[in-house]
């Protein structure tokens, strides 16, 4: 399982990541960021294979793909 | 073991030489510590480049012949940011091409020296003959509000000495400095004595000492920021855009632009007492003054003597620094004399700031001569006689 960390100050919501995601795991969120844009969000976390293409292709250094770590209570 | 300064002297040759004004500019640069020259051949300035090409590899400097004068000016500005002293040399057509990056050097506060061995224009004009037609281009050639420093030597010896001064001013005020001679002086041979190191002063740019809190365009009380060369870890961003004290673009800000451009002008205007140089002859009991500069001032010097023998009370104010303009000096002369003669090898350029400084206190007569010939003492005497008839 993976998660994406988004720098919301830098993301401009351009959709390059969504367009290129090979597993179609990302989509544009309906919420607004502080910059007034719709950011990407990971909706299909199980489908994401952690290829990091979105991270490599982000023109704004805004996405980091990380492996989700489960913490036992 | 020989020191670096010994090597410079060895590279230049004999202490006393019979050389051209162009050679003298090159020697001045070498004595000032210039180790980088970029240029493009152009008559009558080519010999400056030739001399630098010969000397620089001998002293482990760098000579590079660029594809044009635009690139030459760019290269010396780039090289200056590595912390070395840099120079280029050209003539009118090339100086026209340098205007763009000259403005960049002013905006980015880059020390460098430009020698312009003037020839007649407009355009290709008279490549092998002297003129002083670029005086106003030097002042206003690059776009936007700015100040510039320009020195005008009158002899081969002085071409060398003022090139050293030009480097000192460039380093002190972090700005490009112009040395303006002309084709006659550039190609004229005279006796040149290369001075010993203790006979002249050298100024080095003030460098930043600590990276902590360093702001590359925050000025000291003298309005000049401390310099941090590329490669020293200061991570300076240099831009021709309007920038803040951190060096970052703020091109849409009126107050930042106002503050920056006024400081760039003020660092020169508030230090005119350090920058302005001139010589006075026969200032006492003077009725008619000649205000001259460059090679023209040489004939004027003779005319002062000869005129006095003929009963003309003539004096000479020889301007050495043309920009910033010594208006207070000119105004002082204007209060003491009845008329002023301004001989120029152009159709009238420096006569305008002179008239502005004189402000109607006395008549100012322009004596233009163009076509590549110098004013003769006879012509000058005739003009003085005419002027005396008009005012007395």
């Amino acid at each position, binding site marked *: 399982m993976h998660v994406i960390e988004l*720098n919301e100050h*830098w993301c*401009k919501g*351009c*959709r*390059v990541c969504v*367009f*290129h995601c090979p597993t179609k795991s990302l989509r544009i969120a309906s919420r607004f960021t502080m*910059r007034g844009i719709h950011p990407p969000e990971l909706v299909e976390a199980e489908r994401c294979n952690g290829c*990091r293409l979105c*991270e*490599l*292709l982000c*023109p*704004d*250094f805004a*996405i*980091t793909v990380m492996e989700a770590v489960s913490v036992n209570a | 073991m*020989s020191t670096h300064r010994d*090597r410079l002297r*060895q*590279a230049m040759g004999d202490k006393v030489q019979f050389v051209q004004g162009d050679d003298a500019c090159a020697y001045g640069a070498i004595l000032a510590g210039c*180790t*980088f020259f*970029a240029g493009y051949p152009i008559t009558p300035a080519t010999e400056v480049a030739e001399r630098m090409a010969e000397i620089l*590899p*001998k002293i*482990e400097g*760098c000579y*590079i012949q*660029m*594809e044009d004068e*635009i*690139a030459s*000016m*760019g*290269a010396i*500005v*780039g*090289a200056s*940011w*590595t*912390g*070395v002293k*840099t120079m280029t040399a050209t003539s009118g057509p090339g100086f026209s091409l340098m205007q*763009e*990056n000259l403005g*960049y050097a002013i905006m980015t506060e880059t020390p460098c020296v430009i020698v312009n061995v003037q020839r007649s224009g407009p355009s290709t004009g008279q490549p092998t003959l002297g003129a002083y037609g670029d005086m106003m281009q030097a002042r206003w050639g690059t776009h936007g509000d700015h100040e510039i420093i320009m020195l005008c030597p009158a002899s081969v010896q002085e071409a060398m000495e003022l090139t050293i001064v030009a480097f000192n001013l460039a380093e002190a005020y972090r700005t490009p400095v112009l040395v303006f001679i002309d084709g006659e002086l550039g190609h004229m041979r005279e006796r040149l004595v290369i001075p010993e190191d203790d006979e002249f002063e050298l100024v080095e740019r003030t460098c930043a000492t600590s990276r902590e809190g360093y702001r590359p365009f925050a000025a000291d009380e003298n309005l000049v920021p401390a310099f941090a060369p*590329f*490669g*020293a*870890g200061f*991570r*300076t*961003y*240099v*831009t*021709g855009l309007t920038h803040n004290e951190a060096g*970052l*673009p703020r091109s849409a800000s009126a107050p930042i632009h106002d503050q920056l451009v006024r400081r760039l002008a003020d660092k020169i205007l508030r230090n005119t007492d350090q920058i302005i140089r001139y010589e006075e002859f026969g200032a006492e009991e003077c009725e008619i003054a000649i205000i001259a500069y460059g090679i023209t001032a040489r004939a004027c010097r003779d005319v002062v003597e000869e005129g006095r023998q003929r009963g003309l009370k003539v004096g000479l104010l020889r301007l050495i620094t043309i920009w910033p303009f010594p208006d207070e000096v000119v105004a002082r002369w204007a209060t003491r004399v009845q008329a002023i003669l301004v001989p120029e090898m152009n159709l009238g350029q420096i006569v305008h700031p002179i008239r502005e400084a004189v402000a109607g206190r006395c008549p100012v007569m322009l004596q233009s001569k163009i076509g590549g010939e110098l004013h003769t003492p006879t012509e000058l005497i005739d003009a003085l006689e005419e002027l005396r008839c008009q005012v007395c």
Partner: protein
Amino acid sequence: MSGLLKLKTAAELRQIYLRHEMFPTIFCDGCGLGNVLNYTLWALDELQLDLDRTVFVSGIGCSSRLSGYVNADGMHTTHGRALAFASGIKAAQPDLNVIVFTGDGDGSGIGGNHLLHTIRRNMDLTVILVNNFTYGMTGGQVAPTTPIDSFSTTTPYGNIEYPLDICALAQTLGAPYVARWMINQPYPPIKSIAQGIQKRGFALIEMLVPCPTAYGRRNGLKQLETIWQWYRDHTILIDDYEHIMHFGSPEERAALHDKIKIGVFQDYERESFEERWATLVEQVKL
């Protein structure tokens, strides 16, 4: 290039290489200039280049803003003149790494003569030339690279001029390293920029970058998806191109006519200006 397996994360790159006060970038939605910066930083990281000894030089235009985003010494110069300034820096201080960001208009239009002579001189510079087919910052005028028949604000009836192939020019001039890439695939340009930086002498890496705002919208490529896909559809690896030219059917060969070749076009050794100058100095110095 095993280093690629140990890629840092974007968050780590941000911390190490970027001048945070310059962010967010000025670039439009769908613009690929940020990708060029991104790939350059990954290449720098792969080489573990000392940022204190690296200078980024640029001219004027959208692409020339890239130098300001890197937390290193940078010089944002005049339009077209980046190579002249960069040559001065490199010639005066050969042990600095000098990387130039320029555009198609900046680098091959107004700066065309400097490009020609900097390659001829073989200055040891890495030039990342971003080609977006237009003058973007001034609003989309025709550039030396604008495809024939394309529309721009100054070719409202279509461009009648033939475009310049910058890589072919650089090859002819003898540049030791010449490559062209699209930005849709990150790894080839990252590897190529790293190779270019390591190459002694002049290295040119042309990056084909989509400009939906100034170019795309006048040429049916306004949507991000459409213009990014256009680059996939209209580029071909030089290797594939040559294979088809040798072995393909006439129809397959004919289909190549509107394809832009990408890949490494030239890679060989040639002494740089700085090396030759150093040799000369050794011979004549006092």
